[in-house]
């Protein structure tokens, strides 16, 4: 079965069950941060470590979902989504740096003996403008890159390699100290967000809830898109672009729309990720990170909405466990995962579940 609009679980397990499970998961994700608010000696208290870790994985899940929109639905494998994620993160980081620097310059600029903020930092002390940047920076970059790439019909592997080159160039640029984003160190040592202490339990809880909300919205959005004619056009585009053109559709607009949307989602995820983990630096843009995101999607099952989320959870959960239990074997496990998934699980975990379900 090659079901494109794959509320696969919904179709197989019945919408009621899916909704039920979804509601339970959502409830857990809402209760989890609330438990964090309990005093530390309470046995039910969820530690900041757990909360941060789960929150981080949820951010990755949003990235996976965004990547799946372009890869699973439109057939464009981006190896540069880390760039958009990091751009969103940097935009938020700029605000956090300004917040912690007060009226002065951020510490790293003082280091470099800069006397004034570069023009692109203008207005970043305002949370709302930072939020705009979170959307605009990845969105505009995706728009410009996508416009040119889709105009000249770059697709398939070429597209992947170009996006990889793009994020690599971004990484090099941000590594430069002169670029004005803190070079290799990036931004760290944040103190407050909107005046609230960033390490306070309440702030963490709120951040976590924001992430859950963003993930839920992304899922709903993806679901709506997948159900609409737009989703079907994307699937058609993935499978037979020429046919679609001769049907009178202009693929560029469709690709551009989903591409920019995906980039913006990534940027938003990055913006929530940064205050949670407390650091953003250019290594987020390294091609390795972006390619790892592709394996989350592939493992979970691309072309489905729940698959990538599952994939991000499984891979990152494994990573957390492996890097403690068998630190030296983590790369073997990850590498083997890449191979096994592509050879034996072309439809990912979701495909496997569905197969079991059919039996």
């Amino acid at each position, binding site marked *: 079965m090659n079901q494109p609009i794959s509320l696969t679980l919904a179709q197989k*397990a019945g919408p009621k069950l899916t909704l039920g*499970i979804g509601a339970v998961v959502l409830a857990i994700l809402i209760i989890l941060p609330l438990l964090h608010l309990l005093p530390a000696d309470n046995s039910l208290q969820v530690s900041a470590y757990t909360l941060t870790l789960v929150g981080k994985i949820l951010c990755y899940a949003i990235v996976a979902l965004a990547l799946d929109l372009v890869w699973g639905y439109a057939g464009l494998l981006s190896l540069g989504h880390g760039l958009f994620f990091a751009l969103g993160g940097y935009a938020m980081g700029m605000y956090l740096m300004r917040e912690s620097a007060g009226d002065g310059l951020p510490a790293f600029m003082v280091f470099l003996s800069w006397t004034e903020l570069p023009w692109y930092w203008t207005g970043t002390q305002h949370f709302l403008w930072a939020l705009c940047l979170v959307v605009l920076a990845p969105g505009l970059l995706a728009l410009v890159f996508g416009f040119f790439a889709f105009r000249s019909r770059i697709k398939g592997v070429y597209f992947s390699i170009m996006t990889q080159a793009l994020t690599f160039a971004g990484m090099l640029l941000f590594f430069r100290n002169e670029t004005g984003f803190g070079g290799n160190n990036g931004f*760290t040592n944040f103190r407050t967000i909107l005046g609230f202490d960033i390490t306070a339990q309440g702030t963490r809880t709120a951040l976590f809830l924001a992430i859950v909300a963003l993930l839920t919205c992304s899922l709903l959005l993806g679901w709506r898109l997948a159900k609409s004619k737009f989703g079907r056009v994307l699937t058609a585009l993935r499978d037979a672009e020429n046919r679609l053109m001769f049907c009178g559709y202009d693929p560029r607009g469709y690709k551009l729309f989903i591409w920019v949307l995906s980039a913006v989602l990534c940027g938003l995820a990055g913006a929530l990720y940064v205050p949670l983990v407390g650091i953003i630096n250019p290594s987020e843009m390294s091609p390795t990170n972006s390619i790892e995101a592709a394996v989350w999607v592939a493992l979970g099952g691309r072309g489905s909405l729940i698959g990538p989320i599952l994939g991000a959870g499984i891979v990152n959960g494994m990573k957390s466990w492996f890097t403690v239990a068998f630190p030296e074997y983590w790369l073997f496990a990850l590498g083997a995962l890449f191979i096994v998934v592509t050879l034996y699980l072309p439809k990912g975990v979701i495909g496997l579940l569905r197969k079991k379900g059919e039996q």
Partner: protein
Amino acid sequence: MKRRPFLKATLAASTLLLSGLFPYTLQAAETIKVGILHSLSGTMAISETSLKDMALMTIDEINAKGGVLGKKLEPVVVDPASNWPLFAEKARQLLTQDKVAVTFGCWTSVSRKSVLPVYEELNGLLFYPVQYEGEEMSPNVFYTGAAPNQQAIPAVEYLMSEDGGAAKRFFLLGTDYVYPRTTNKILRSFLHSKGVADKDIEEVYTPFGHSDYQTIVANIKKFAAGGKTAVISTVNGDSNVPFYKELGNQGIEATETPVVAFSVGEEELRGIDTKPLVGQLAAWNYFQSVDNPTNKKFVDSWKAYAKAKNLPNYQTAVTNDPMEATYVGINMWAQAVNKAGTTDVDKVREAMAGQEFVSPDGYTMVMDKTNHHLHKPVMIGEVQDNGQFNVVWQTEGPVRAQPWSPYIPGNDKKPDYAVKSN
């Protein structure tokens, strides 16, 4: 029957997740847990792996002598995989899940910056064993590597001296990150204070992993034509091999244009054919070739340990400055815990002040009473063809660290004791 697979998968996934969250739920009460936070994979594995092994060896040694407070030390090794956010996550894990008494770890500045808020928030204790750019003094960190005045400035003084070649012009070459930037900033104002004009200072940065030094070496040659020149290299790890090979092949000799490096030690020289490097300089606080009984024992036990644990390339195992700093750090911490009678961070911090340890560099190392840095001797070593250094110059005795360099404007207002950055 349709639900089962999904439920199963959810269960499996959550088990995986949970097992990731709570890796060591069973603890033995009679041990003291010690965290080791060094990258074992990714780009920094090249430098940090040997520090992990050194830490394990030191812990073994301490345990062999009966441990601390009568309890054995139990190392908890985690791999932050050269991933900076992961450093923060793992640090939090060590502190809150494993409840370690102390952590030994980090190499790059960015990894330290990444974990710093975590240690300050949770009042943990980190021992950082690598020379760094200063500009930091956290009550939750003990810095056992050198501050800039314990490495960079003496090295430049040496280069300007008659013996060092009486250099008049300086080519500051570094990898583009905060340590070279800060060091070079300090050096520039130090050079100004010595009457060196800006036209005689050239500052060049290359990206991480830069491997093509043709243009830069050509520029060094051009610059060196203007007068007696020394190159001060803060080039990081991997890039050194292509840099030195290019220097050698383009015929730049140490006698004409000496290169003094702050990031090249014995471990780095293992991967380099040292013939073209002979005579080039490095500044550290310890060299394996330092001749004293403590060091001999230290080197021997490291070699034996490498062999016993069958570490890769144990035949050529060497010690270097950060390894020595790790060794000193762990031992000092153990002494401080014994003195304080508890592993409580605040008590241990108090006990650390003024702590002394006879270290392999030939001195009795002292932890400063206030600034969380060691007093260290500075040595200039010349590369020998066997990959070791020959000490050609050293300070009269240990030098007190100035983490807030007086050569950076505004630092005179910083307190000379550790305060939280938040």
